[in-house]
């Protein structure tokens, strides 16, 4: 449907937008107009790209060779259904966040490169999803990191600075380990191209296994730090609590998922030589992440903090799907990702509306918001119930598919913990509902109109409800993606050409 060369626009488009926006950073209408147009345009393009991949079914992989150098030597971009779904998701959240930011970003922040930094962030995220080379994955990680550092520190409030310092130090340490493990990987395998690595691992298994397993665990440490899995999640709640609501929504929705995507990609494509060790470890980490995240959420008394801890808990489900490592479970993990990211981002945006309306998001300081704004409470209920997995909303189907895949291969213990995690999620969502929306009216009400804040949230909740009503569409996408990633030969053949 769209020519393959256009896939490079998901990386170049945001850079061009960011450059334009940075050049005219004091021109208010230009900032808003270009941001909106660029995010909508990229969103439309990403949907078209995903549709054109889906037409090809399992063979739907687009490989772009930069400068036309052949695959293991040159830089390549690979768009398969998994990565394009992630790009579509990123751009959807991007549109919602830009729309929300139009009304909420302070003038001073806008003049200090809020929108340019946001588009650089999008470029890094899209690049990380589309690259077919581990070193370029590192480069795109750094690009999205430095943009997120600058966005976190924007405004230099005391709390912000403290959290930025923590976030910077943790991430730079993880990046160093990434670089070291890349050098060891290059030393042992002689390549950093993902498809070439996968091919070499498959053909020379036996001799190199010990080093490769150690490397797999170091990569798990690196990506796990970025994805905030147990026991590396301690840094997450602070930085995601501090920035403005639009940024919290993008950070909470997308940034940790880049780490999850990296685990997804590497542990289905390259490090699949010893699943008895690596994927069992993923399962154990998954249930611990799930439980400890939701316990953290239950003990908090602030809406944004509860949501931040929830990010951790939900990542557990995604890792569970990867750890189960059957095509059904991988499809379930991808199916889980989409509604959950939509719900999480819309909940953060709703927290931003609560902040606009009352000046705080602390559960004790607000109450009875449902009589102040009924539409807001309906949006919250839809997103929160989807997150907790109540049918017929989208979250129910995602949990159902992951847990069913666990039942099929007899992992009842993990399924049980998954169900318990879902129950506790519901409990903590009800805690927000009781604290913020239900009960007597307490706290201040600012005389601001909330309607201009709604379009972005409505867009996300619309997709949540839509997926809940028509789960078959997303499920067929997830199955196509799973059929590609569960058989690495498809990916290897697409990148390196047919091998025998």
């Amino acid at each position, binding site marked *: 449907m769209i020519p393959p060369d256009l896939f490079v626009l998901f990386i170049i488009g945001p850079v061009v937008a960011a450059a334009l926006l940075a050049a005219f950073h004091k021109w208010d209408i230009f900032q808003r107009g270009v941001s909106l147009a660029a995010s909508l345009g990229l969103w439309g393009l990403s949907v078209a790209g995903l549709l054109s991949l889906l037409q090809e079914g399992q063979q739907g992989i687009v490989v772009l060779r930069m400068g036309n150098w052949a695959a293991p030597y040159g830089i390549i971009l690979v768009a398969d259904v998994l990565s394009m779904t992630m790009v579509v998701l990123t751009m959807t959240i991007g549109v919602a966040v830009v729309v929300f930011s139009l009304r909420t970003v302070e003038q001073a922040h806008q003049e200090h490169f809020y929108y340019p930094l946001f588009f650089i962030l999008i470029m890094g995220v899209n690049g990380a999803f589309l690259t077919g080379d581990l070193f370029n994955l590192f480069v795109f990680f*750094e690009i999205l990191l430095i943009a997120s550092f600058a966005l976190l520190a924007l405004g230099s409030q005391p709390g912000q600075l*403290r959290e930025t310092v923590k976030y910077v*130090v943790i991430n730079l340490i993880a990046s160093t380990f990434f670089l070291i493990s890349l*050098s060891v990987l*290059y030393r042992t395998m002689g390549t950093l191209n993902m498809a070439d690595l996968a091919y070499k691992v498959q053909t020379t298994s036996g001799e190199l296994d010990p080093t490769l397993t150690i490397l797999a665990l170091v990569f798990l440490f690196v990506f796990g730090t970025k994805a905030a899995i147990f026991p590396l999640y301690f840094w997450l709640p602070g930085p995601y609590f501090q920035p403005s609501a639009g940024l919290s929504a993008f950070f909470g929705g997308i940034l940790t998922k880049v780490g999850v995507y990296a685990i997804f990609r590497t542990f289905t494509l390259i490090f699949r030589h010893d699943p008895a060790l690596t994927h069992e470890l993923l399962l154990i980490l998954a249930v611990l992440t799930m439980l400890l995240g939701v316990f953290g959420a239950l003990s908090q008394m602030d809406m944004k903090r509860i949501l931040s801890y929830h990010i951790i808990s939900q990542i557990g489900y995604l890792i569970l799907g990867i750890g189960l490592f059957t095509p059904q479970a991988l499809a379930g993990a991808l199916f889980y990702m989409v509604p959950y990211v939509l719900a999480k981002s819309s909940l953060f945006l709703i927290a931003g509306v609560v902040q606009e309306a009352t000046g705080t998001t602390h559960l004790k300081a607000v109450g009875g918001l449902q009589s102040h704004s009924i539409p807001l409470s309906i949006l919250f209920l839809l997103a929160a119930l989807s997150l907790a997995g109540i049918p017929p909303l989208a979250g129910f189907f995602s949990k159902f598919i992951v847990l069913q895949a666990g039942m099929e291969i007899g992992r009842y213990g993990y399924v049980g913990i998954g169900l318990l995690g879902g129950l506790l999620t519901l409990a903590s969502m009800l805690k927000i509902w009781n604290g913020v929306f239900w009960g007597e009216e307490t706290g201040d009400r600012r005389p601001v109109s909330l309607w201009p804040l709604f379009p972005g949230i409505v867009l996300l909740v619309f997709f949540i409800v839509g997926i809940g009503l028509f789960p078959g569409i997303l499920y067929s996408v997830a199955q196509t993606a799973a059929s590609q990633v569960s058989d690495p030969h498809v990916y290897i053949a697409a990148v390196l050409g047919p091998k025998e």
Partner: protein
Amino acid sequence: MEFVIISVIGVLFGCGTYLILQRHLLRVVVGLSLYSHAANLALMISGGLERGNPPLLTTEAPYVDPLPQALILTAIVISFGMTAFATVLAFRVRQVYGSDAVDELAGGEE
């Protein structure tokens, strides 16, 4: 020769870890930059420290591996940017809080 480089990487990592565990932000920043030096050295020996001809079509084998150099160049640029950002951040923290000791950074809690 590789043993020497590996020892240097170890020493850099040790010093870096010591500095990152300090209270003062500027030391943490220096520790992070030592970390990135160690990583760059590790990249350098990832292709093997061998003498050889430049990898051009007109020269004869043995060639040296050109990829690590390209990787290091990229990694140096990135770590330069990151260190610059971290230094400015430490400076700003010093301005806002009047101290750069990490355990004295308060505020922003609700």
